[in-house]
Structures are given as C-alpha cells and as structure tokens.
C-alpha cells in the first residue's frame, strides 16, 4: 500500500509508541510486581497464593460463570444472526442497531437498572405478584450475575457473527442446494464451518470480559459472590497489596493466553482442512 518503506514505518510510529507505553510497559510492571515481594526480591509466593482455597474458589467460580455466559450468548446470538442475514439487508441492519443500542449506555448504569429489576420489591417481583405468582429471589445470586453479563456482552457476540454470516456468498448455498444437500446438511457442512471465525471472535469478546468483570458481580452479587475480578480489585484498592494483586492478574492473563493459543491452534487446523 505504501510505496516507500520509510513512509510506512513513519505511520507505524504512533502505534509503536502507544503499544509500548500502554501495553508493553504495564504488562512488564504487572509481571514484575507479581514476582517480587515488598522488598523487591524475587519470589513465587504471590503466584502460589492462587492455590489457596479462597483465591482458587473465586477463580473457579469466575471461569464457571464466564463459560455459562459465553455459551448462552452463543446460543442466543447464532439463530438470531441466521434469521437476520436471511432478511433484507435494511431491516436486518436496523435490528442489529437495536442490539447495539444498549452499548451506548454506561455499563454501570444499565447494571444498576438490573438491580432494581431483581430486588425483593423490584420490578420483576411486582409483575409476578400481579399474576399471583410466587416471588423470585434473584438479586445477589449467581443467576443475577450471569443475566447481567449476558445483557452487557451479548452485542459483542452478535456483531462479529452477523458480519461473518452476512459475508458468506449466497451462491454457495445455492450450490449446496443444487447438489442435493438438505437444509440441515447445508447448515452443518457449509454455514457452520464458514461462520466459525466470527463465532470464535465473538466467544473471545464475551469470555474474556466475563472472566475479568468486577463491577457486574459487585452490583448484582451484593458482594456475597467473590469473583477473581473482585478479589484483584480489593487487593489493589482495599488491602493495598499490589504484589498479590499483580500476581493474581498474571494468573488470569495465563488463562487468557492459554485460551487464545487454543483458539489459534483450532483456527490453524481448520484452515488446513480446507
């Protein structure tokens, strides 16, 4: 695109500076803090804290809730996107816009709205009472946190899926039909494999924020549920133990890196199959 290499490098400079200051340096600091004690000596103590029951169980709960959130988002978003792509472009775009609308509002604000819905005398229970149905105690339960996360992260699943699905050439479906494939076979052999890249980026964009959230779990969990994000936040703000906080963040980063390596390997093998 750029004829002169010098010019190309010049355009790279802002990114390099940005990545250096805001990505590379902070990560180095986190790893440095995570592997040292208050005197600055090297230690594995902070990292090994994750094996303690209180940290280990909050990490396990976080992974579990993030997985549930991701799966539900995928199950909700996939059929929706399939339907949208089949419709005329214009109406599909409007519905997508509606889906993205919640993103315009601050996450904290919308999560607090969920709080008022789930409360004991909240909107949900008031509606249930109108129909003489028993009350539902959702506030401060894992279910409330998962619903809050699904609401906040669903658009991140819908968008990449929709884009990928709408880019698939329609003639491929026609070809499949011509060659005698049933609707089910077309979906299984054509649509699904071709949409995988979108699904994978959607899963990534939902799973990682769901794993690290602390605001949604604090607001909808009533601090009775401790996710790893809440633990890290406390280490930094309340207990002022940056070393332990950084170590736990590093462990979380390892989880995310492992996940990304797996998806990368999966994509690679998939491409080779093609």
């Amino acid at each position, binding site marked *: 695109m750029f004829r002169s290499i010098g010019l190309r*490098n*010049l355009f790279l*400079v802002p990114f*390099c*500076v940005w990545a250096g*200051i805001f990505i590379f340096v902070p990560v180095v600091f986190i790893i440095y803090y995570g592997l040292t004690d208050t005197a600055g000596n090297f230690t594995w103590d902070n990292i090994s804290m994750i094996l303690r*029951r*209180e*940290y280990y*169980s*909050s990490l396990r*709960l976080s992974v579990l809730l993030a997985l549930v959130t991701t799966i539900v988002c995928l199950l909700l978003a996939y059929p929706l996107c399939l339907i949208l792509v089949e419709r005329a472009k214009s109406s599909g775009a409007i519905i997508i816009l509606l889906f993205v609308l919640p993103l315009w509002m601050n996450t904290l604000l919308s999560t607090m709205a969920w709080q008022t819905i789930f*409360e*004991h*005398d909240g909107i949900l229970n008031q509606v249930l009472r109108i129909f003489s149905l028993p009350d539902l*105690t959702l*506030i*401060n339960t894992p279910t409330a946190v998962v619903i809050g996360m699904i609401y906040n992260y669903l658009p991140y699943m819908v968008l990449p899926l929709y884009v990928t699905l709408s880019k698939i050439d329609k003639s491929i479906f026609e070809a499949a039909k011509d060659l005698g494939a049933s609707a089910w076979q077309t979906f299984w052999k054509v649509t699904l494999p071709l949409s995988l890249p979108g699904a994978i980026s959607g899963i990534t964009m939902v799973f990682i924020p769901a794993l690290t959230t602390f605001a949604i779990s604090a607001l909808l969990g*009533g*601090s*009775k549920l*401790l996710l790893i994000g809440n*633990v890290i936040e*406390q280490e930094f*703000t*309340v*207990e*002022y*133990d940056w070393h332990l906080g950084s170590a736990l963040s590093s462990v979380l980063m390892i989880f995310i890196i492992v996940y990304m390596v797996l998806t990368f390997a999966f994509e690679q093998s998939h491409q080779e199959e093609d």
Partner: protein
Amino acid sequence: MKKILALLGVIICGISFSGCGGNTAQKNEVYVYTWGDYLDQKTLEMFEQETGIHVVLDTFDTNESMYPRVSEGAVHYDVICPSDYMIQKMIDNDLLQPLDFSKLPEAKKNIGEQFFKQSQSFDPENKYSVPYAWGTVGIMYNSKKVDDPVDSWNILWNEKYKDRILMQDSPRDAFMIPLKLMGKSLNETDKAQLEIAKEMLIRQKPLVQAYVIDEVKDKMISGEADLGVIFSGEALLISLANPDLKFSIPKEGTNFWIDSWVVAKDAQNVENAHKFIDFMCRPDIAVINFNALGYPTPNMAVRDLVEDDEYKNSPVAFPDPSTYENQETYKYLGNEMDAYYNRLWMQVKVD
C-alpha cells in the same frame, strides 16, 4: 526510525515534567484531604474570606484508599481527616507531625475532654490529632417489620429475618460483631478466637441479603432490607427520610469511632494547616458542618447553636454519654494482623 522514537520520547517526557513543575509552596494555600461530603462548602469560603488562605480540597472514600496517596507522597497534603486506627498506622509509619496546640485555642476550648481521652487509644499522648466527628456502629431496623426487641447483635443471626439483613463489607466492621457477641475485644488478635468469629459469620451468611458500604442507606430507606449494620451518623439522616427506621446500639458493645484532623509530616503549609483546623473547631463553623453532615460532633459548643429541634433533641446526634462510655475504639493491629483479618474475611465471602 529510532531517532523519531527517541524524539517522541523526549517530547512526552518534556510535557509530563513541565506539568509537575512549578511548585506552589510559596502561595498562600492549604491542601486538605478528607472524606467526601464531610465539610460544608460554605465554611471553606468563609475560611478563605477571613484568612485569605486558599483551600485546595481533595476527597477519599476509604481510609485504605487515602493511605497510599499520602505515603507515596503523590501530593503533599497539609491537613488530613482519617479515622482512629488509620491515624495510629500513620503515626507508626512516621507520616504525621505533632500539632502545636498553642496555635489551636478553639480546639482546646471546644472539643470535649472525653474525646481526647478516647483518642488516646490510637494517639496515646494526644499529640497528633484533633477530633472532628465521631460515632458508633449499631443496627438500623424497620420497626414495622421487626417485632423482636433490637438490643443485641444476636438478632442478626435470627432465621426469621433471612434475606432481610445487610452487613458492612469491611473486615474490621464485620468481625467486630461476632467478637462483641463472644465478649471479646474488637481489637482481638488471638487467632483461635478469630477463627470462632469467622465460623459465626459463615453461619450467618445464608441469612445476609448483601454485604454493603454506601448502599445501606438506599436499601434501608426503600424498604429492601429490614435490619442493617450502620454508622450512627448515617442513621440520623436515614431516620429523617423514613420514620419507621430506628437505630439501636446493641448491649454487647460496639465500635466508638473518631475521625480527626491531623497534619502530614511533609506538609508545606504547617502554619495554614493549624489555622484551618482551629477554624473548623470554632462553634459557629462547626455548627454549619454539623447541620450539613448530621454526624455527632465532639464540639461541645455546637448543641446550643443548633436550631432544628429534630436534630437538637435527637439521641442519635447527641447521645447520652452513657451510650458511648466504656466503648472500644479500633486500634491499628499491624500489617500482618490486618492481612490476617482480610484473609479471614475473604474466606467468609467465598464460602
């Protein structure tokens, strides 16, 4: 390429350094660091008018978030308003300087002797701190929903109120309650006793609706919860908003907390800091702050100046001395013990 990077680096450094440069020590200012909504803006303006000293006000929401900013010397604050145990921690870590009480005549005249005496649990020689606000921790309850007498912390373990109980989300305030029920000190350091207290909190957890800090106000007023552990200062405002809500101090005892003015070791306007503290102790100023804040004041001259009868006759705002006599105040238990409390609290929360 490298040259460009280097040049950019120089520019960025230059910008950031010029931002921090130009110290303001010579100006007639005082840097105040206190809790959010802890002073009436009017009193600051009056101080500026009378003395010509400009007040730069910063606020914090927990002692723990204030501490690193002061200890790292990010900003040189002159006057700070931390709580009891945190003042002791700051004294231990050499972050405060002794006050010159000859420059604080109003403080000597107006602040009740008993509050200086109580302060000795964290400031043994009364050298570093001037009390500004105080209070207790008790149970706020909805008298329409709670028919048992609320005079003991035991009620927070009553199955009848499952899911209607709010607890404070902080290790010391949470452990204070079972420790008091056990008849122990709220500064307990015996790990075996703390273990028993932890088991009690775990047993209580299924009954607790949420562990909260500031949200307790909204949830009590709206009727979302019937019993809440709360600081006495907030209790007054809450009971004015919803008259069904009553405040009670359990008979087993509670925490008598004090927030006090202190001067930082590296303060650059020591003279102004003393003027500011003394100004805040003047009865006519203290009453403005009291009306805005609603927290009990250690300033003995304030009650006569309060005009609003609801405040003046409130046993929450001006308690009978018997309610706070012999109550304990938090002490700083050292870094290691702090970490131990935090760890036990986390075990309660993940259980």
